């Protein structure tokens, strides 16, 4: 429960943070600390330095612009939970934020940390898959010879942003496609079109637990039929899983019980759970099936209520 020794940096710009990361491959970014610090206490992670993002301006905030909901990486879960914008227009996201840990966790945990940590048990990744969200990574590439460290403080570095689709972002358990020195700065969720609705159903053994399984569903109704659907699963595989067959079962249907049952069956088949304290493989698939049905029916109901 006592972590080994580490250095602690609190840079005030992303460029400095990036430099510190590149200078020390053993360094890690610190956001809310609610995944990283527990791992350090168990000595499962032993970074030799932490680079704290909390003093870098402009990394937190929620707002709509250019057809997207833009969430700064350092936005705390509690802000997401309280945001009227999120509650009103992004019910799937609001559902998700509400079931992460407990209020104490949510006061510090960040959305950026949640996706960057890529714990298969984390809740936002599946939600981001269902939303077809994208992630903005910023890096400060070196365009001249010599190492970054040598050039430190000489020239202002040029920031380079890239936008990564959620489907490409999660590459394995606890790993993403972010490159060394690249910092996640923003998450973008396409603004909902008319007739959209979504829901997150999480089943946990107790409050604050990671999911036995959870299912994110986002869909859009057009003329009484489902025109678009995103279905993704939490904690039933090494990464969040996008259940494409379940999406296909929903698309073109009327969102009635038969279609939902079919989608639920397809989602259960797409799950790749392993047995642990939360249950057997068979059980977890069954839970995915139940939750998919429940999430999809709530998503359909919300889509029907959504302003046209």
């Amino acid at each position, binding site marked *: *429960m*006592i972590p*080994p*020794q580490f250095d602690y940096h609190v840079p005030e710009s992303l460029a400095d943070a990036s430099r510190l990361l590149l200078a020390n491959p053993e360094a890690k970014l610190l956001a809310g600390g609610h995944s990283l610090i527990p791992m350090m206490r*168990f*000595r499962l992670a032993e970074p030799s330095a932490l680079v704290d993002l909390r003093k870098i301006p402009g990394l937190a905030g929620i707002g709509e612009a250019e057809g997207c909901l833009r969430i700064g990486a350092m936005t705390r879960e509690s802000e997401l939970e309280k945001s009227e914008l999120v509650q009103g227009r992004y019910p799937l996201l609001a559902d998700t934020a509400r079931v992460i840990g*407990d209020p104490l966790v949510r006061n510090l945990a960040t959305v950026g940390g949640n996706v960057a940590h890529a714990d298969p048990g984390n809740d936002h990744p599946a939600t981001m898959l269902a939303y077809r969200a994208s992630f903005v990574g910023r890096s400060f590439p070196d365009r001249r010879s010599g190492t970054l460290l040598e050039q430190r403080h000489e020239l202002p570095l040029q920031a380079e942003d890239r936008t990564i689709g959620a489907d490409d972002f999660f590459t394995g358990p606890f790993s993403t496609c972010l490159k060394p020195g690249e910092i996640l700065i923003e998450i973008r969720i396409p603004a909902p079109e008319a007739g959209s609705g979504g829901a997150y159903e999480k*089943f946990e*053994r*107790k*409050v*604050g*637990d*990671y999911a*036995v399984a959870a299912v994110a569903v986002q869909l859009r109704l057009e003329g009484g039929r489902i025109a678009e659907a995103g279905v993704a699963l939490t904690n039933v595989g090494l990464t969040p899983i996008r259940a494409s067959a379940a999406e296909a079962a929903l698309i073109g249907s009327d969102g009635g019980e038969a279609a939902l*049952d079919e989608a*639920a*069956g397809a989602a259960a088949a797409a799950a790749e759970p392993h047995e642990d*304290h*939360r*249950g*057997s493989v*068979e*059980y977890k698939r*069954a*839970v995915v*099936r*139940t*939750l998919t*049905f*429940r999430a999809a029916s709530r998503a359909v109901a919300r889509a029907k209520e959504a302003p046209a």
Partner: protein
Amino acid sequence: MAKCRGLGHSVQRKEDARFIRGQGRYIDDIKLPGMLYLDITRSPYAHAKITKIHDETALAVPGVAAVITGKTLEAYNLAWMPTLMSDQQMVLPIDTVKYQAQEVAAVVATSRYAAADGAAALEVDYEPLPVVVDPHAALEPGATRVRDDKDSNHIFHWEHGDREATEAALAASDTVVEQAMHLPRIHVASIETCGCVASWNPVEGHLTLYLTTQAPHAIRTVVALVTAHLGLAEHRIRVISPDIGGGFGGKVPVYPGYVIATAASVVTGKPVKWIEDRSENLQADSFARDYHIKARLGSKGGKITALSLDTIADHGYSDAAANPSKFPAGLYHICTGSYDLSDAHVSVDGVYTNKPPGGIAYRCSFRVTEAVHAIERMVDLLARENGEDPADFRLRNFIRPDQFPYTSVLGWEYDSGDYGAALEKAMDMIGYRDLRAEQTEKRARGELMGIGISSFTEIVGAGPSKTFDILGIKMFDSSEIRIHPTGKAIARFGTKSQGQGHETTYAQIIAEELGIPPEDIQVEEGDTDTAPYGLGTYASRSTPTAGAAAAIASRKIRAKAKKIAAHLLEADEADLEWEQGRFFVKGSPDRGKTIQEIAFAAYTNHPQGLEAGLEATSYYDPPNLTFPFGSYVCAVDIDRGTGQVRIRRFVAVDDCGVRINPMIVEGQIHGGLAMGIAPALFEEISYDPDGNITGGNFVEYLVPTAMETPHWELGETVTPSPHHPIGAKGVGESATVGAPAAVVNAVVDALWHLGVRHMEIPMTPARVWSALNEHGAAATR
């Protein structure tokens, strides 16, 4: 005269002023000059030979002062220590480890961080050995032997009752139900982990031990006995148990860490602090339960006839239970419960396995939870087998009020009870018959709800000296009260509160007896240099023993006060009458002296021929145990799509005799109920076949929070104990003991029509879903 708020008043807890302001003083708050810190390197294996400990790897860490191994301790003859059950336990191993997370070596350093780094850096070479985890397998011929100093893995066989007569009675019954059940390993998981500060003064040859212990005096004597060869004597040992953040039985045993820290203080000549972290606490400290029970219960013409229990008790690597010495299976033979039956037999076989030692009484006076679980599950099964509602079946089979004092077939003399009244009250409160009607409707719609009852009988207040001792020390307890000249008082006790509110309730008992307001009475416990000798707080014994001592000591003081009052009033003692807080002359109520006036006179104007001062001590040896009881009824709903059990309502009617502070009693019941539903639905410490713990942190060991606990609905009946000076019985554990069976009975009730007859605990969603699935009742929506 001001109301003195003695018995029956919900006086606010005196101790809370410091607790809610963060001014409690716990072990980890203690800092002594020059203090060193100790951390422990633990075994990754459940059974292994230690081939080498590379001290230098830890000593290389800056700040590390010493590495302590079994060899270090061996030089002081301290590598082994006795358990409270007269078994042996390693303090630090010489050459083999017997369970995962066992202490292997300790590192002492100048800071907590350096100690942790040193313990992590210490390299140890192991040769893994075969492991036995399942207690049944451990009893097979040729099983891996856990203990090198024993011939087999069988620790003890204990039985009670008449086996032959019980078999005959079962054979003569018209209905017999049989069920195997397991009460898994669980852990008290108190908020404060265990720890100590050991401070050896080499100049004075004096040891001060600040310790997380529920029984400071017993610990002092044990330390004196095991260190006598080192020249340490009992008057040179001071054990201080400061504020304790929850004990629940987990702070009764002596843990190796205490001994190692003491040895480290002797070796380094400096105070040494050792505080367990959460994982160590869950993984290595004494566990509770782990009883595998085979139960049979018979009836004839709807009347219960006979009970048989055969039990395998998994004690891990050592029998480190904390039972009274003559009771290797505690008070398990209370298992005939609340029922009048004429034949019973119970047996327990203790077994060694490669798991941490234990068998402590987790908020349950010595195996009573196991006993209650067995009888309450079996009575439910038997009721159904008889085609009867479990409530009606219980009401007909209870020991009747006119049968008290009642001697059970297994030899306990129940002091008082009215079981029917408690159950009927609980049924009224929850609306039992309406819930049954609702259940019928819901079943027709395919919804699952269940109603469960548990009508438990507790047995607390150990105990009478003729049968109860721990390592030979009789299980009395004590109170010493001194009244100051201004009428205020200090009272000290041999018990030790861990959150139970003794500072308030003891003061209320004295207030009741002497008329001194509770806020004028300072209550102290936990310092062996000042408090009178006693065996400590566990097994709901404080009110039955030390609480009784408080009343008796107060009465001694009152007797002397009467003499002083007679002197002051120039009246004959025989002409004085007592009203709370005051003696007055019969017939002239104006002529009187208050206890405060009398106290002042005791120091300023005491009668010739009487000693000055006003104080008394009582060592109370209870004539019998007390038998609290109650009936719990709970209603559950089950989600067929996930297997989740939701407790919709939980009614708890408790009878603990006279209630001293109703608010504190209710608090005890609330906490006990939460700890009672925990093993039913959430908690278990389990091991894989290699002996690796699979639930050793709070991610897997699911302690329920406010979110998982329902709104408790409490009720009471009051049947005083006829032999306790104030009629009180003890209530610290009733709820933990009674609640699990109510929840299991409710879940089985919900699933009964599907063909489910039993559920093992914890009834996790996965386990419930499997039962649903097996019986074709799992839903997909």
